[in-house]
């Protein structure tokens, strides 16, 4: 498969997944703010903190207001990770590999793009919760269409790898939103309010019901973190995502599982095995936020290795 093509499929999937996750973590903030006691200021700072693009936000808007934050994350074309920009990039990538992906996939990317584009152009402010729901739905449609209309060949595996790495990375950020959300006072840790916020976070990752099924206790932070980080079977948990990414990687290279012969396989395999044998107490011990930070840079490092290994088109010495 052409390197350029593999790169485009990888990014097509990453951008779609990214758009979905931006909708998710905007949604979680929305829900948490609504649960805030009367009189408390809505908190939108955390969203900007977790986006990782704080500097750009302040350059462009100066001030944190709900409107500014939402506009920045959804329709700001100058922000490369806004939902609209993600769809733009996803579509451009899809356009350059139209002959590789199925027509149905292309049509779905195109429809998705036009839906966001129309919402962005409209004079009316969208109903945000239903807008975010629709974004999630369109993304799920894309994933479903991809899985049932595209041969599960090398290209498909590049797409899988992109999607799962992106999802793992974004799940760390969604977990991080809660870290930055301030409670009225220290005593509120473990209170009903705290519990409500953790529940909102679970809902925003579509994890609430699945979490409930495996743990009948009251919602507590450690158990939620454990579920989203280490659950082996929940499809948005980081461990699950890393497993899937690794599986696709080995499909592409043909290297037997459990062995490695290049930096991607080594780094991703190491990350996977760390998560396999990790206990949540160790995470809590070092601090969840610090742990998530480190995880993000390890995932980014894997992405760098993938680029160098498969996509880099540096001129050959002839």
């Amino acid at each position, binding site marked *: *498969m*052409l*390197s*350029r*093509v*593999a790169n485009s499929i990888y990014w097509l999937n990453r951008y779609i997944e990214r758009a979905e996750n931006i909708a998710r973590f905007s949604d979680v903030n929305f829900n948490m703010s609504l649960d805030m006691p009367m009189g408390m200021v809505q908190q939108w700072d955390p969203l900007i903190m977790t986006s990782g693009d704080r500097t750009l936000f302040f350059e462009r808007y100066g001030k944190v207001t709900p409107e500014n934050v939402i506009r920045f994350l959804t329709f700001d074309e100058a922000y490369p990770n806004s939902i609209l920009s993600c769809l733009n990039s996803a579509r*451009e990538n899809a*356009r*350059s590999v*139209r*002959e*590789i992906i199925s*027509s149905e996939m*292309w*049509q779905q990317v*195109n*429809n998705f793009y036009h839906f966001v584009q129309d919402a962005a152009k409209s004079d009316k402010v969208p109903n945000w919760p239903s807008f975010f729901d629709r974004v999630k739905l369109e993304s799920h449609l894309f994933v479903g269409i991809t899985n049932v209309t595209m041969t599960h060949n*090398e290209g498909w595996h*590049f797409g899988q790898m992109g999607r799962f790495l992106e999802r793992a990375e974004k799940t760390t950020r969604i977990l991080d939103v809660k870290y930055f959300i301030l409670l009225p006072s220290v005593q509120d840790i473990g209170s009903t309010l705290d519990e409500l916020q953790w529940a909102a976070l679970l809902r925003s990752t579509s994890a609430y019901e699945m979490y409930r099924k495996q743990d009948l206790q009251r919602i507590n932070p450690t158990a939620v973190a454990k579920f989203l980080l280490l659950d082996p079977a929940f499809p948005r948990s980081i461990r699950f995502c890393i497993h899937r990414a690794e599986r696709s990687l080995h499909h*592409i290279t043909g290297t037997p599982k459990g062995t490695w012969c290049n930096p991607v396989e080594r780094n991703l395999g190491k990350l996977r095995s760390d998560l396999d044998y990790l206990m949540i107490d160790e995470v809590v011990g070092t601090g969840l936020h610090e742990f998530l930070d480190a995880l993000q840079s390890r995932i980014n490092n894997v992405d760098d290795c993938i680029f160098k290994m*498969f*996509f880099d*088109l540096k*001129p*050959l010495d*002839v």
Partner: protein
Amino acid sequence: MKFSNYDPGQFYDELFESQGIPRADAQTLIDRIESLTMPELQRRQRAAQSALFKMGVTFNVYSDDQGTEKIFPFDIVPRIVSASEWKTLDKGLKQRIEALNQFLADIYGDQKIVKDGIIPAELIESASGFHKVCMGLKPPKGIWCHITGSDLVRDRDGNWLVLEDNLRCPSGVSYVLENRRVMKSTFPQVFETVPIRPVEEYPCRLLDTLTNLVPDHITDPTVALLSPGICNSAYFEHSFLAQQMGVELVEGRDLVVVDDFLQMRTTKGLRRVDVLYRRIDDDFIDPTVFRSDSLLGIPGLMDVYRKGRLGLANALGTGVADDKVIYAYVPEMIRYYLNEEPLLSNVPTYLCWDPKQQDHVLQNLDKLVVKAANESGGYGMLIGPHSTPEEQEDFALKIKANPRNYIAQPTLDLSRVPTLIEDEFQGCHVDLRPYVLYGKDIFVNPGGLTRVALKKGSLVVNSSQGGGSKDTWVICE
């Protein structure tokens, strides 16, 4: 009655013999249209447009910076070509392509046609598409112009004329295929009763044409379509054709010449490419031989080609025959190489490099269409009857400064087809671009792109100049 007021005017109308009297092959279609209400027709027109939009059948306009993609406007009233007319076109085009192919082989070989005094040497050498570096090339199987899209028009009396040949990288065939798909859902009943020849065979035929160029000893060939990339106006088509044929779509940056073979960069290392359907002009394809500032091309490609290690469609150098001055000699070529009379005529053409003809052109600028010999796409032309005296003056200066680069043709009253504009049918001028493949034999796809000038009275049908398209129905014998 939607057509009772439709006036074919003083033009040749493709669907009507005269006011109220449809041509025999159009009767069923016209009846069907009459049976539908105007709102229903408009709904179908919109449905067709939106189907094309959803499929992403779009093109890019270079001068337009508001979003690069446009949908090529589509009209639901098809143009119909009768079986007997098509027979003439089919034969005429095959004859023409055969002669042009022999011309290309000759002009980059012994140049007999020059030596025998049919075409002056200086005209060949000054043609912008003529490349000295192609002298002595021997393309596989002696085929130069594998894919051609000749532009045909009909005059007031219904005579078919060839306007240009397009031997470089003619585009538009994807619209032929997609328009047909859309039309089948627009008028399904008509397709059941009228014997319309299918056009869907094209991608398979194209693939055959390309694999025909693979050297015999290679059993697992790689065929690729070379596109300038996503910003090119015809990118949709490149991607569509690659998909339909199941071949790789590559860009210049995917390719590299290593060990005297053309290779592409894959996730598993380099892989040899045997045949390239290139949709990049000669000028850009190899910066070491042609334009050195080209970023689209592949350094060293020409060498590989010369060594016979790569099939290229079309061959390099075919652009010489697209020069509008050389075009004027095609009827002579047919007589010279085939010893036959041309079955399809050229549009009468005045060559400004000849002083006598130039005089005539300069005195009749208000009546003629003047074209730059090396331009296409409707750029760089003067339409006399629609021009101002200043524009004519401007062209007169251009002609005198560079007579070799200009030709003139009479303004043709192009034939018309009823076209749904808002809530009525208006006669709009059309041309026809059939696609011709030269593989083991010559194949003319039964149909073609009918381009229609949507601006009232306009004669310019190019997509870049506000034209639209129609489906083309060729009736079975």
